[in-house]
């Protein structure tokens, strides 16, 4: 079971969900190149100018670590990275689990992605505008976490830190991607974990994906926000388990 995090943070995003599966599966967590503790020197602006660059990496990880068919769990943009990897070598994948996926963030005719091109430009500006706060090695400082003493200092200061240039390019690649044409090729059993209130991946997008993917299950969970595996890990695990049982995995 391979877990791929989305835009923003790193593999620590899975800390409330992944451990439960390590008994039944071999779980593999990784940081996308450019995020978290990945080797920044491996970041190649040409390779990572499309999602395919990330998909090639994901496939490399699957080839290296998986002994049998893989269940690929992708959050947000990584759900689409999983689709690309799956299309390339379908025999390696037993299932795709998409948490808050979106094949296209920008509205296009009848398709409602939730954003306009100007919105995405505004995001890029926001990333750029946090110049002081997010530049180079300055992570957003924290004021102490009295409720969570178990959180190590190392973790607290690093897991959402991204080189500002990398963050900008990754944001552009993520939010300007359009994977709608590739969806029809995906025949692997797929679970779509859809939040009822998520501005990044609205309910209409989950419905669209469900219609386009012939072998898909749509599970809507009650959660505000784009990271249900952090804010509602219980309900996410419940729909995941139900899906895995149904598919006999």
């Amino acid at each position, binding site marked *: 079971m391979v877990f791929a995090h989305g835009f923003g943070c790193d593999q620590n*995003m899975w800390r409330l969900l992944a451990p439960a599966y390590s008994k039944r599966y071999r779980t593999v967590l990784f940081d996308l190149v450019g995020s978290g503790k990945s080797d920044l020197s491996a970041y190649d602006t040409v390779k990572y100018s499309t999602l395919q660059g990330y998909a090639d990496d994901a496939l490399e990880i699957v080839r290296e670590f998986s002994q049998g068919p893989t269940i690929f769990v992708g959050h947000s943009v990584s759900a689409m990275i999983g689709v690309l990897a799956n299309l390339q070598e379908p025999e390696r994948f037993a299932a795709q689990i998409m948490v808050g996926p979106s094949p296209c963030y920008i509205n296009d005719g009848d398709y409602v992605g939730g954003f306009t091109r100007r919105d995405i430009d505004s995001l890029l500006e926001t990333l750029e*505008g946090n110049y002081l*706060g997010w530049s180079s090695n300055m992570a957003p400082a*924290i*004021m102490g976490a009295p409720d969570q003493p178990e959180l190590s200092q190392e*973790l607290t200061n690093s897991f959402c830190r991204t080189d500002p240039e990398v963050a900008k390019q990754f944001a552009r690649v993520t939010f300007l991607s359009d994977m709608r044409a590739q969806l029809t090729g995906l025949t692997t059993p797929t679970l779509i974990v859809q939040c009822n209130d998520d501005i990044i991946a609205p309910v209409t997008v989950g419905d669209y994906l469900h219609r386009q993917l012939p072998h898909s299950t749509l599970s809507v969970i009650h959660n*505000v*926000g*784009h*990271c249900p595996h952090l804010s509602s890990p219980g309900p996410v695990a419940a729909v995941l388990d139900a899906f895995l049982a149904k598919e006999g995995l």
Partner: protein
Amino acid sequence: MTAEDSEAESQSLLDEAPCGLMRTAADGTILRINRTFYNWLGLEPAALIGRRRFQDLLTVGGRIFHQTHWAPLLQMQSSISEVKLELIHADGSTIPVVFNAMRRKDQCVVVHDLAAFVARDRDKYERELILSRKKLEALVAEADRLQSDAKDRALFAEQMIGIVSHDLRNPMSSIQMGTHLLVQSDPSPNQQRILTRIRRAADRATHLIADLLDFTQARVGKGLTVVAEDIDLHALMGETVDELRTVYPGRKLKHRGLGQGPCRADPNRLEQLIGNLVSNAVAYGAPEKDVTVTSSLSADSFVVAVHNEGSPIPESSQAGLFLPMARGTDTSSSGGRSVGLGLFIVSEIAKAHGGLARVQSSLEQGTTFSVVIPRG
């Protein structure tokens, strides 16, 4: 002071605080907001409390950022500080604001407490930073482009030199061959004189072309080729000096051989090397003094050196002498045929033999160019 007074004072302190304060539910729904904050927004608290979520007050970019960075950070580490986002005022304008936020449990319910500071100056400063960085990046890109253009042009020029000098060899050898045949066909004394002049000019040109070819081979190709064989170093140097005497009839050339032993090197390259060094010594040395070629053999290396007297080479220009296109500043003598490649080629020949070329020059000692080649 009664408890009520104290409560009222706390309330006023919160309301009048010189920063915006807000408490929201875990999903962002606004539970409390102080006056400073709602005044910034241009909205009444009734329009906000229970009706709007914190993230609804942000620009779209800010909302995405809130989802991808803010929310997971707050979830995982319970607090974040100094995050700059833009709020939308009731009139549609935006306000740059720096936030601190803390996630805490208030009677078993998770709430988020936010403190906000308007940061117009920081915003301006950051925009200026971004602007100057962009300018700098543009300048660096331009400089990179110019440098790469210059490199391309230099490489092209060097390749061009290689091609042209290669193609010049055939016509030059036709001229030399033709002159040779004419000399044998019983020319008149006048014709003989002209033919000698043509032959010398053709020889000079051939040398020049050979230097240029070596130069391009060393620069563009993989270095000079050498074909090493067992040689008698002193005999070879002696013959070379004899030939050079006929080229420079007005000068006194001496040869000294020191030490004995076998030697392995490319004889043609050594001749070329000594030819270049003697040509320099004749051009730049004191005309009335000797030019001495020394060949010496020792247990671990052999050395060939050319010495002349005359004004020394300034120390400052000694280091760059072996670079292509370097030449002495004193060009008063007209005998030189150099285009500044001679010493570069000497140095390349030394390198191709695994050795090194160097120079020593002073008023008392004169100038000595030597090439030390270790025995294989």
